């Protein structure tokens, strides 16, 4: 591994959590090193939130334990709480308080004294560019602004590790970029250690020094984005056909010709892993024609983390159906919280 500073800030040792018959988190072990951004990448229901909840001392593991900043989450939960900042997946601001008051209450609860607190709040509101909104009730904030406020709040107690659970879930692309900038800024300027979860592969790729890919409560791969992507050599050609049937037909033809091809069960896309896409693309198109498969779209790229996930599980991270469902749920939640 190519990690320079080897101070472990978070150490998870066989963390396990069951809900009835479901094992939401299944003997997960990993380390997060000082100053890095470490990401949990996995689809909905993989166990990301459950893991974070155990690390931040909200949920008691059934087996295993973890330590954060050298303190055991079970034996010294308050020591852990003092040293971390948390941005939850769901919004946890008080809509009927102003942005300023949300931070003020948080600061007082964390034991920061009043004078220091005012300066700190001003500084952080500036950092997340919400100074002008300081006195507006948070229920009038957009989703992106709320998230920024939550990040500012999590930084108030000068945490040693920042935990973020799906920091850009349900945000529009511009708001996401904004959040990414803040997080990268924190890492660069404050050497902040960040643990985040996401089901967006581009987010993990862009932000994380190291990623653990998690599925069904287990870590199925871990490494830097480069290391993970190099699990797949060459390039990936995506061939979109009109029906899943066509896709299956094409996949089988390709395999007969010795290609490494994969498909997902729902949307008629075939993924072909080749050495050089530009050279192979015409060959594949010709093959499709011979097989009588109508091709709707072709493109290629170097492997993405999604390809890695497909390679490992046969499923895609990018499940649009769940994605839009999540989005609606998020909208409902925001609407109700007004």
């Amino acid at each position, binding site marked *: 591994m190519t990690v320079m500073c080897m101070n472990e800030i978070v150490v998870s040792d066989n963390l396990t959590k069951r809900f009835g018959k479901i094992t939401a988190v299944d003997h997960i072990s990993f380390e997060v090193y000082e100053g890095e951004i470490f990401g949990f990448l996995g689809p909905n229901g993989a166990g990301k939130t459950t893991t974070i909840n155990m690390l*931040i*001392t*909200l949920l*008691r593991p059934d087996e295993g334990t973890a330590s954060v900043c050298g303190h055991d989450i079970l034996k010294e*939960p*308050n*020591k852990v*709480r*003092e040293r*971390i900042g*948390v941005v*939850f997946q*769901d*919004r*946890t*601001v*008080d*809509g*009927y*308080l*102003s942005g300023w*008051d949300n931070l*003020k*209450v*948080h600061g*007082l*609860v*964390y*034991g920061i*004294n009043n004078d220091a607190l005012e300066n700190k709040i001003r500084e952080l509101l500036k950092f997340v560019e919400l100074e002008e909104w300081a006195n507006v*009730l948070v229920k009038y904030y957009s989703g992106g602004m709320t998230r920024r406020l939550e990040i500012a709040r999590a930084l108030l107690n000068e945490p040693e590790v920042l935990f973020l659970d799906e920091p850009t879930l349900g945000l529009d692309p511009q708001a996401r970029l904004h959040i990414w900038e803040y997080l990268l800024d924190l890492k660069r300027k404050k050497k902040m250690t960040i643990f985040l979860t996401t089901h967006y592969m581009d987010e993990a790729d862009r932000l994380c020094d190291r990623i653990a890919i998690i599925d069904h409560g287990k870590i199925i791969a871990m490494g830097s984005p480069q290391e993970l992507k190099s699990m797949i050599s060459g390039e990936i050609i995506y061939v979109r056909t009109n029906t899943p049937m066509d896709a299956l037909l094409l996949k089988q033809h390709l395999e007969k010709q010795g290609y490494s091809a994969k498909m997902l069960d729902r949307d008629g896309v075939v993924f072909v892993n080749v050495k050089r896409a530009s050279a192979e693309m015409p060959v594949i198109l010709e093959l499709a024609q011979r097989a009588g498969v109508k091709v709707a779209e072709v493109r290629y790229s170097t492997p993405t983390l999604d390809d890695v996930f497909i390679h490992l599980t046969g499923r895609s991270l990018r499940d649009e159906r769940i994605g839009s469902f999540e989005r609606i749920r998020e909208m409902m939640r925001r609407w*109700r*919280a007004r």
Partner: protein
Amino acid sequence: MARQVNVSRHFRVIYAMWYRQVKRFLNMKARVVSSIVQPIMWLALFGVGFRRFATPMGFDYLAFLAPGVVMMAAFVVGFQAGASLIWDKEFGYFKEILVAPAPRAASLIGRCLGDATLALLNSFIILVAVYFFVPSINVIGILFVTAVAFLIALCFTSLGTLIAMHIRNLETFQLVMMLSIMPLMFLSSIFYPIDSMDFWMRTAAMLNPLTYGAELARYFLVPSVSSLSGMQALQYFVILVVITLVLLEISIFFFRKLTMG
């Protein structure tokens, strides 16, 4: 683990949660307006109606009732304040509190004090309104009655919050409230003197903090309709303080237990 008590740390947390509860309420304009208008309307309609037929009976019922109504306001608003905990659980704010390294007791006390303050505000408005209906009230007594109303508010805020801790659903909570508010009110001496009750009712009333509140309020506001002696008043006051502290302590105990304190 040794629990070290740092007073200023506790105080800051208590203040933070108190501030949050009060400020949040003040930011809800509609609630502020209704909390002022409602009790006044209630007393106006109820009181005037009663005066019509109670006075000819040779007994100033309104003077008897008014102090009880002040307690009733503190009780009803305080008791239902537990709903804010259910709101916080639903909308995530609760997690924000749980992940803080703050002493659980302080955060709960702050919360209850905040809600009790709001309930007190409500009953204070009633108190002012009462002055217009029953001009004969003892103005000096208002100070003492405010203290008693605060105890009643805190007592029932603690109880309401304790109940809310164990309930997820707002409708369930409201049902529990509806089913307990009426009996608590009628099994107390708010509406009729203890002496007029039969044995069972009297026993129930003497277990009910509201009775102590109503009796004390009467003693301070309208001594002419009170049957308490000074010694009894002191006794009642101590009993009310003890009940309140016990309920608050039970609340804290369960709060710690339920939240990995």
